[in-house]
């Protein structure tokens, strides 16, 4: 079937089987491999992308369902060479070791800060509770998100 989906403000049309999951459309058809593909069972959260601004696990959304929604992936965070404060925070506060969980973590963090610009550490931990870091670097991930909350776009680009 033909699927037209908007990813990072760009429309893509592809011919796919109805059973193709959003994560595989992104990675295999659109070659946006920033979104990782992990557990396949909606447990690990590395495949999280934003769908109309809300984090969703793209291994459990059909590509066909995503049509008509705005999808934002980790590739859509940086604008004109300037990192999103969340990406900058992960860099400065060492929010990753192996980096496998990172795309999902940063997208969930972006969505959290969009609706709650100054979350408590408990709220940050709650927001990422559906995501697994097997390096167990949660303390630095929380610090990275806190850094992003404390630094606006202007400060980062400055």
């Amino acid at each position, binding site marked *: *079937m033909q699927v037209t989906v908007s990813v990072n403000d760009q429309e893509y049309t592809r011919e796919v*089987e*109805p*059973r*193709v*999951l959003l994560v*595989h459309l992104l990675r295999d058809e659109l070659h946006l491999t920033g979104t990782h*593909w992990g557990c*396949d*069972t*909606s*447990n690990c*959260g590395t495949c*999280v992308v934003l*769908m109309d601004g*809300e*984090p*969703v*696990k793209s291994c*459990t*959304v*059909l590509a*066909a*369902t995503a049509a*008509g929604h705005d999808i934002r992936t980790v590739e859509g965070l940086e604008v004109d060479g300037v990192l999103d404060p969340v990406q900058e925070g992960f860099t400065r506060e060492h929010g990753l070791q192996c980096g496998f969980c990172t795309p999902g973590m940063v997208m*969930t963090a972006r969505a959290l800060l969009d609706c709650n610009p100054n979350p408590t550490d408990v709220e940050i931990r*709650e*927001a990422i*509770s*559906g*995501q697994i870091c097997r390096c167990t670097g949660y303390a630095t991930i929380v610090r990275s998100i806190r850094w992003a909350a404390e630094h606006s776009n202007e400060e980062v680009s400055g």
Partner: protein
Amino acid sequence: MQVPGPFEYARATSVEHALELLQELGPEARLLAGGHSLLPMMKLRLAAPDYLIDLDPLAEELGYIREDDDQVRIGAMTRHRALLESETLATRLAIFTDAERVIADPVVRNRGTIGGALCQADPSEDLSAVCAAVGAQMVIRGPAGDRVVGMREFQRGPYRTAVGADEMLVEIRVPLHEGSGSAYEKVDRRVGDWAVAAAGASVKLTNGKIERGGVALAAVGSEVTSSGAEKALAGQAASDELFAEVARLAAAECSPSTDQRGSAEYKRHVAGVLTERALRRAAARALPEDA
């Protein structure tokens, strides 16, 4: 890589359209709501429908929580996140808020729906116990129109409901009673896991006496509601001693299985403790604020 088996895909544009598609495609068609139960089942080949009818475009039409005079009406496509964040539910039916805090994880709650959860009818699923404890009514729409059934009729056993092949669940109606309170308690091993055991309770108090009580357990092989426990509540004065006795009855009535989440004996014990806690909290919430 786990992907569902092949199927043909159709998108419903309205409830009527979904019902037409069900008629046209026959019993090998399944409705796809939030997809967070059905798609994992399809990946494991535990479900292999020939057709999927995607209800995603109905998220607005069937996504609502409305308080009428004496009931709260919840659209079947209302997502877990909306249930968790609903002020109406937090103030009138806090059992939903209690349960939603511990259903799956925040990201899954952005997609999963109440209708999908109830129709999946997983024996460890929380909202079935929640709806049973508060005496919710299920509105099922089919070619012949609407029919309304209680949870005892709706639930036909694990993964089976009263919803026919050409029907769909469209609304959940929860009665509101003055002087009533409700609560949900769950023990799980980690975020996102199924319950080891869980208990929902509701009580309607009149002059300190329980006019009506609801008790429903999840994940421990119980009936839709714990009828012995409910009978023991009716007409009695609310007290900690009563709740302890009723919890003992609820625990005795269920039949949990030993698995990786614990032994049957342990689960039965937890079910009793959670029932008692849920009853005490429900009763505390039933008291008028100025009391």
